[in-house]
């Protein structure tokens, strides 16, 4: 008798679990995580991936979305616009309706055209170029601030606190770097600060000796660089070696401990604008512990925005009561979401209504403190 009961329980459990797995297999909500898995800026991709995957894991643990589990799939665009388009087409073919990504603005821009056309909802946690949301698209959102916000923050800080006499603004000719550099230049000129040099370098270049010789000749006393850390790291290192001792400043694309590995002591004292350090926020400590338990670093600037992006998609689906992307987009615009990056509300364009950048001072051991 007892045996029979146990058997029947076993059968019941089996039936239940197979039913459960059947319903899961039938209806998981796939979220494409698109960004660089390889390439020169892969570490930023990692930040986005670990943030998004943590959110997926925690939401699934808490029962999923409307009973369905989330499933994250990584797609590698290598921060290459051509590959981003290929990835976007693959996402369309794979029948995925939600995308968290891409990372580089120059990849997000062409990919988002495809998503909008194909009715896929995309939230980028890292692309800060204003152009991405300025085209009247319905399905494109972001959980991070804009260059047009970051540029003025940097420009105002330079003009009000550093008060240099002669500034050079350098950029890497890419959409992200040049966009921010232009915004900084405009802010500085608006405040009457002289910008004597504004020019691009080739991304991937190693030798900046002739640029440094010219910076010396121009007698600049402050340099803003729009771009990513591999080039700025070399520029810092070579400037220091050649005796050009001026302060540098960069956007969040340079705020990575790699820059200290490349530039060593030359990275001490650099200014960088970053989103607020969400991992320092006391109410996020539980989440920080969860990352640390998996030996992941929660301090990167895109980890929490990516977490928030997944959470917003999940709550949007719940509020819309369906996975129809138009309805979810509607739900995103009409609700506010309580996420680890704060209470998020989206405007008509799909941007956050309030997002602040903070100026940090970088240290050679890869840490940072808020600049006064």
């Amino acid at each position, binding site marked *: 008798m007892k045996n029979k009961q146990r058997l029947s329980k076993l059968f019941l459990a089996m039936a239940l679990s197979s039913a459960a797995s059947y319903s899961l297999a039938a209806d998981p909500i796939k979220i494409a995580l698109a960004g660089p898995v*390889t*390439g*020169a800026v*892969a*570490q930023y991709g990692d930040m986005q991936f670990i943030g998004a995957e943590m959110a997926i894991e925690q939401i699934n643990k808490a029962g999923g979305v409307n009973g369905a589990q989330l499933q994250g799939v990584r797609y590698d665009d290598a921060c290459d616009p051509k590959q981003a388009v290929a990835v976007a087409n693959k996402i369309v073919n794979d029948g995925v309706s939600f995308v968290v990504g891409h990372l580089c603005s120059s990849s997000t821009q062409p990919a988002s055209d495809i998503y909008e056309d194909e009715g896929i909802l995309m939230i980028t946690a890292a692309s800060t170029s204003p152009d991405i949301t300025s085209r009247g698209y319905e399905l494109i959102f972001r959980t991070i601030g804009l260059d047009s916000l970051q540029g003025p923050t940097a420009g105002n800080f330079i003009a009000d606190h550093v008060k240099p006499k002669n500034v050079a603004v*350098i950029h890497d*000719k890419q959409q992200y770097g040049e966009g921010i550099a232009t915004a900084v230049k405009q802010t500085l000129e608006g405040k009457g600060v002289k910008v004597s040099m504004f*020019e*691009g*370098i*080739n991304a*991937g*270049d*190693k*030798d*900046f*000796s*002739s*640029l440094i*010789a*010219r910076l*010396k*000749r121009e*007698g600049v006393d402050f340099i803003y660089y729009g771009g990513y850390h*591999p080039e700025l*790291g*070399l520029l810092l*290192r*070579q400037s220091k*070696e*050649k*005796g*050009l001792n001026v302060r540098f400043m960069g956007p969040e694309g340079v705020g990575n401990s*790699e820059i200290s*590995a*490349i530039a*060593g002591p030359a990275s001490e004292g650099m200014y960088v604008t970053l989103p607020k350090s969400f991992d320092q926020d006391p109410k996020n400590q539980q989440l920080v512990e969860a990352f640390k338990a998996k030996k992941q670093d929660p301090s990167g600037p895109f980890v929490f925005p990516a977490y928030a992006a997944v959470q917003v998609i999940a709550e949007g689906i719940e509020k819309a009561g369906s996975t129809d992307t138009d309805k979810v987009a509607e739900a995103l615009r009409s609700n506010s979401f309580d996420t680890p990056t704060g209470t998020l509300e989206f405007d008509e364009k799909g941007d956050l209504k309030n997002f602040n950048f903070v100026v940090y001072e970088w240290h050679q051991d890869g840490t940072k403190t808020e600049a006064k």
Partner: protein
Amino acid sequence: MPELYHYLQQLINGLTVGSTYALIAIGYTMVYGIIGMINFAHGEVYMIGSYIAFIALIGLTAMGLDSLPILMIGAFAASMIVTSAYGYSIERVAYRPLRGSNRLIPLISAIGMSIFLQNVVLLTQDSKDKAIPNLFPGNLVFGESTMNGVTVSYMQVLIFIVTFVAMYGLTLFISRSRLGRACRACAEDIKMANLLGINTNGIIALTFVIGAALAAIAAVLISMQYGVINPHIGFLAGIKAFTAAVLGGIGSIPGAMLGGLVLGVAEAFGADIFGDQYKDVVAFSLLVLVLLFRPTGILGRPEVEKV
């Protein structure tokens, strides 16, 4: 005076970059001179050279042998030996079986080899930048100060010296030694050299080894100078060195040396006059101009039809 200092500084910057181009360019030009093939995997050989140097530096430091001479010699020796072995094996695996076939086939094989090597490093070392510390920090300053004068870093001095020694050694080897004579014979007429009892397969392997060893020297120097390596550096370095080789006259060893220096100086002054973003434009325009007016390059000889 400041203007003079400025242009002198740019000249030195250009020569430093140029001498590293020249070192890599020799690998292209020697192989072309003997078997008439462009070894497109050469840039990746250079990239592997920098990784070997990086690993050697880490290894030696981990063993506690961190005095400067040991680190330098260790990095150069390890990188040259291992990279030469790569050069030899690439020739053995990817080119020798295709000897005598249509010219395009080894070319495709070279491109395949290049992709293969890059991905091997990508998979084993991951795609992140690796940082190498500068072992020779410091500058020589000529003129009033670093801001108004010419600064030459110790690393730049080292690059000049090592490049000069390597080039001089190679020239001596080619012009004086028995093997060097065999190399020249092969470059002139490989079939005839074979008939006269020269082991041409051995000589071809030797040119790959020499090219790889010089690329390794360049790799150690450049990675110490700039301090960052990643699996993608081979492509640009390869293209620049190839340009230098064509500029100087492909197939000619002095041509590759001169081509490298001219390219480096053109880049430095191009960046100075037109801005840094036009650096590559200036370099490649120069290439187009030289090829238009002197299709064989600066020191190249027009190819004589072999009978």
